[in-house]
């Protein structure tokens, strides 16, 4: 029996010994160094399926045990960045060593169908790569394709049809209002996501205290774009009717605590590098000059422009942001058009046809510095801005006779703002807020018009050579606001008393001079040439102004806010004392007024659900005309308008209300807004416009009148996963009633306008992209009780472009713009055709663009405004060819 048991045990062990194979060895690299953590796998030779596996230890050793009865075995050795190695070996216990080579792992990428948009109630996040395609260069190109977002030609952004109030890059606001520098500079490929924040209260200390309906946008950069300095260069040259060029350098640095964006640009291809962002004073007179159409500046701006900007932001130790910017720009712009202006009079229509040319030069210099400490309990913002603009212009108008104009003005503006909040440490619900804004602006202005256009008024019926109009205008404004953040809180109702003091001072000095000389119809004499012309001052009071206007307005009131999870109500009840004084040192218009006013306002918002919200606003207002509409001495506004206002201080009272229904379903990429606005006002005076031939004289007459305006607008945006289709639609219609005193008759003008816009973008395939923007509008104006009226102006515009990405880094983009305008029985149709060829060579993007291939000469547009109808054929850039390169210098 013992023998049998021994036999069975021996057979068992021998079988075991036969079945178990141990393979061990070491894995080294080519330098004989051990490889740690490499995978060693034993595979079945027939189907390469794994039987056993192990990992090498720190010394590169491995050991595998198998009970397989296969005759042969396959050993695989592999690891991250190691070239995989196989060895076929006998199925027996043995040592098998490997020497492996390094090899970079090439992954077969699988792209995730990412949700393009995600977010919560008030925040929407757009994943940029889900919207971007290869033809997009800067972030503005991608923003255009995001549902709910629109980008204007100048790079400014709107969300659901509403302009954004703040633009952050990595949560920091470096560029203040001039954020279009960033949207047109930051590379689309450097941005990870775009975040839109609705109901954005930028002041942390006011969060939960003051409801805000502002929209802000934040750009989140990809990790590799942060903390590195990038310098982009643009270079281009071409030909239109003369040599065309564009060039620029843009330096950018965005890090956690410091940001910088600087540009150096010059072009004559249609981009204007001078803007009026911080200008607070505007001329009271102007040359009559061609009015640019609302299409891309590249089409119509025939200019030479240069600009330098420097913007930087530093985060200080106390987390405050210190930012400063400096801008310099110059622009010289040539314009020409043929226009027709209609004065829709009750019993007649006066038509004025003008051929115009102008050449304007502008220079600007602006500097600003901002300090912003934004904490939960403390807020301090100090901002100082100063800007200077210098403008010269000369223009010719041919309305049957040739009129020459020259203007020359410079504006200096300065603005300071201090906004300070301190909340109690013991009770964070209470605190104090102070906000003070002071601005000053001065604008000396000069206009010369030859020949003299108002001989009856200015020169006793005698012809004369030139009218000179000098206007000096100064404005000072200070607004100071003090508020106790909480004095009473009952349940969710909060009452916050406030005090406000505002003052405004304006000064106007003007002289209308006519240059007496024999009028020479054959040749307009050079202006201001001493010796040739004789100057005469109109000494009468009615041609000069020396007026001071003061407004002091102390106010006290309270904010009542009710804030619950879904409901927000804010009621503001002020009591204002207003003192107005007009000090007319030459004329007889001096006047004083003292009034007690109250202009309450109410806003209400209710969130029905995650997707639906309704909000309404009702506000009353009171306006007094500023000095611009109170001067008693004649001012030459332009060659055909001589105006003076002769009436006591008067008021306009009004109220406006709006109701907005908003819908947003982020998961389904649907955005929508329906809003109704109504405004009604009552004027104490009317402005009488009377015509003497083609010239208009404005006088103010005390006669109460009222007008109103109703508008309904609908915005809808929908994105689809299918083919990256994105559709944005905007429709609006408005009806207005406004009284005008024309030729001693009161006439009510009825304006009606309809407008519909549809933009769509689609990626037909991975290589073919299509964008279309269509717009239709219809305007009518009619005059109550009179036969005179006008025919509707109808315009239809469609812009389409197709981008096709070809192999070898090539892409082609043909685009077409169709315009159809019908007004006053006249129909204008024209087509603008462009073609662009793109080529990407390493990191250089080259483009060859041919614009206005059909060489269309002018852009035709018309509209109605108040008692005017306007039609213009504006000269645009002729056929042009431009070869441009964009590349990253480092």
């Amino acid at each position, binding site marked *: 029996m013992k023998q049998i048991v021994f036999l069975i045990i021996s057979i068992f062990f021998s079988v075991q010994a036969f079945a178990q194979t141990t393979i061990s060895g070491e894995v080294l690299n080519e330098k004989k160094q051990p490889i740690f953590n490499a995978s060693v796998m034993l595979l079945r030779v027939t189907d390469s399926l794994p039987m056993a596996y192990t990992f090498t230890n720190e010394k590169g050793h491995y050991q595998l045990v198998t009970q397989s009865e296969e005759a042969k075995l396959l050993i695989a050795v592999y690891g991250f960045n190691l070239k995989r190695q196989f060895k076929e070996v006998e199925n027996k216990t043995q040592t098998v060593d490997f020497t492996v080579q390094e090899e970079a792992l090439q992954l077969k990428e699988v792209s995730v169908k990412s949700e393009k948009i995600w977010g919560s109630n008030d925040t929407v996040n757009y994943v940029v790569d889900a919207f971007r395609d290869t033809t997009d260069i800067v972030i503005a190109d991608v923003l255009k394709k995001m549902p709910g977002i629109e980008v204007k030609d100048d790079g400014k952004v709107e969300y659901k049809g509403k302009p954004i109030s703040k633009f952050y890059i990595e*949560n920091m606001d470096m560029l203040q209002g001039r954020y279009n520098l960033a949207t047109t500079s930051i590379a689309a490929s450097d941005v990870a996501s775009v975040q839109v924040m609705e109901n954005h209260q930028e002041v942390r200390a006011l*969060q939960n205290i003051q409801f805000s309906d502002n929209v802000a946008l934040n750009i989140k950069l990809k990790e590799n774009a942060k903390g590195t300095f990038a310098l982009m260069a643009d270079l281009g040259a071409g030909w239109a009717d003369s040599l065309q060029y564009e060039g620029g350098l843009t330096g950018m640095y965005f890090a956690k605590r410091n940001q910088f964006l600087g540009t150096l640009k010059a072009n004559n291809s249609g981009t204007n590098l001078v803007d009026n962002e911080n200008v607070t004073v505007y001329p009271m007179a102007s040359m009559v000059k061609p009015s640019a159409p609302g299409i891309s500046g590249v089409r119509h701006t025939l200019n030479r422009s240069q600009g330098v900007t420097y913007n930087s932001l530093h985060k200080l130790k106390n987390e405050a942001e210190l930012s400063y910017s400096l801008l310099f720009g110059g622009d010289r712009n040539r314009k020409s058009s043929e226009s027709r202006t209609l004065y829709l009079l009750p019993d007649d229509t006066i038509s004025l046809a003008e051929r115009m040319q102008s050449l304007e030069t502008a220079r600007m210099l602006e500097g600003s510095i901002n300090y912003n400490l934004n904490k939960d309990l403390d807020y301090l913002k100090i901002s100082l801005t100063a800007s200077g603009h210098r403008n010269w212009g000369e223009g010719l108008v041919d309305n049957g006779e040739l009129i020459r104009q020259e203007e020359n003005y410079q504006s200096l503006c300065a603005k300071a703002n201090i906004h300070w909040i301190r909340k109690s440490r013991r009770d964070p619900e209470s605190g104090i807020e102070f906000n003070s804004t002071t601005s000053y602006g001065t604008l000396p202005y000069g206009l010369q018009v030859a020949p003299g256009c108002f001989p009856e008024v200015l020169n006793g019926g005698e012809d004369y050579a030139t009218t000179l109009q000098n206007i000096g205008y100064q404005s000072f404004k200070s607004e100071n606001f003090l508020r106790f953040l909480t004095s009473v809180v009952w349940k969710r109702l909060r009452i916050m008393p406030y005090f406000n003091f505002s003052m405004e001072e304006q000064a106007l000095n003007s002289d209308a001079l006519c240059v007496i000389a024999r009028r020479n119809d054959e040749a307009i004499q050079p202006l201001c040439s001493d010796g040739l012309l004789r100057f005469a001052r109109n000494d009468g009071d009615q041609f000069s102004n020396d007026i001071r206007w003061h407004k002091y307005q102390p106010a006290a009131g309270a904010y009542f806010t009710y804030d619950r999870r879904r409901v927000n109500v804010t009621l503001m009840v002020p009591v204002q004392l207003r003192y107005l004084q007009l000090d007319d040192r030459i004329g007889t218009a001096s006047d004083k007024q003292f009034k007690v006013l109250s202009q309450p306002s109410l806003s209400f918002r209710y969130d029905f659900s995650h997707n639906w919200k309704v909000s309404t606003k009702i506000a009353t207002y009171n306006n007094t005309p500023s000095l611009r509409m109170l001067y008693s001495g004649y001012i030459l506004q332009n060659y055909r308008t001589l105006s003076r206002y002769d009436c006591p201080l008067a008021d306009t009272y009004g109220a406006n209300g709006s109701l907005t229904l908003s819908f947003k379903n982020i998961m389904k990429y649907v955005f929508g807004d329906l809003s109704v606005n109504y405004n009604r006002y009552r004027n104490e005076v009317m402005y009488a416009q009377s015509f003497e031939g083609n010239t208009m004289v404005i006088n103010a007459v005390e006669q109460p009148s009222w007008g109103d305006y109703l508008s309904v607008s609908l915005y809808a945006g929908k994105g689809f996963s299918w083919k990256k289709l994105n559709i944005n639609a905007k429709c609006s219609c408005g009806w207005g009633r406004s009284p005008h005193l024309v030729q001693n008759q009161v006439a009510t003008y009825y304006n009606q306008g309809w407008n519909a816009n549809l933009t769509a973008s689609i990626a037909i395939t991975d290589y073919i992209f299509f964008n279309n923007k269509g717009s239709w509008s219809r305007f009518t104006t009619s005059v109550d009780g009179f036969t005179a009226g006008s025919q509707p102006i109808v315009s239809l515009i469609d812009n389409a472009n197709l981008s096709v990405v070809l192999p070898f880094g090539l892409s082609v983009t043909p685009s077409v713009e169709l315009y159809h305008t019908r007004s006053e029985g006249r129909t204008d149709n024209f087509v603008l055709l462009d073609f662009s060829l793109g080529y990407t060579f390493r990191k250089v993007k080259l483009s060859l663009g041919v614009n206005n291939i059909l060489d269309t000469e002018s852009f035709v547009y018309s509209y109605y405004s108040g008692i005017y109808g306007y039609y213009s054929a504006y000269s645009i850039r002729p056929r042009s060819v431009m070869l441009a390169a964009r590349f990253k210098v480092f």
Partner: protein
Amino acid sequence: MTKNAHFVLLLIFAVSRLALSQPPVNLDEYKVLDQSRFIVTYEVMMTKDSLKPTEHKFDRLVLMVGDSISTCYSNTMHRFDSAYTIRCAHKGRDSYQGLRHFVGENGDVWVPDVYKYYIKKQMTVMHRMEVPGNFVPVYLYEEPLDLMDWQMSFDSKEILGYQCFKAECDFRGRHWTAWCTMQIPVQDGPWKFCGLPGLILQMEESRGHYAFRCIGIETRKKPIVWYNNVDYQSCTHADVVKQMEDYHADWNAYVRRVFPGKIVRAKNDGSFEKVSVGEKKVLPYNPAELE
């Protein structure tokens, strides 16, 4: 009422606006541990209630694989944290919005974040309990990497163009099947799963309650970071299991224990009613780890 009660239980304390959510993490305050070499995205399917086996919830997990460290986290939770980070910077009106607002239809949140340290062969698990505000710390515990005892099976299939082989294991009360590829030679996978000689592209639980499916792979360098400014509390896996059991056994009692305020419930009309002390609220409990 049950839906509302489940959705929003507002707790009135010194802070007036709070809603049901995990404590958020500020993503701006971190230290970099490693750099990812590639990023894998998984879709995770969950069955929260074993009595309703056909009601599945989904989330996306992101696995960032670096040279010596990997991290795996919920995409939904990351978005919630991103929004919180923006709120920290801007203090927008969003501040009272909880994690639930970031969850889509059929969505839920895969709670634990896992950091795997290849060299010291350990993983750190960061677990956030679903309670409002910052009243409960973020639990941290460590576990070894070799938690699973894998058995190879002779089977293979192709997933997303990668040839995968099959392996199985029993892990804390559930039987799992893994599909792993040699073509991506890292010993990693979704959540705590690791230890196979290749990346795990798919994991399936035998009862169909849980599954992880790879839906994306991309080569991308991104920092693998550890968030500093968080109230972490070290504990063990058993401690977290105990907390989760208490939490699901009676939610009201759990919240009352961790939160020093009064509990109110939002009613349909927007007003609140007090939740009485004895009121019990049992939540379904079907965790991925049964033991």
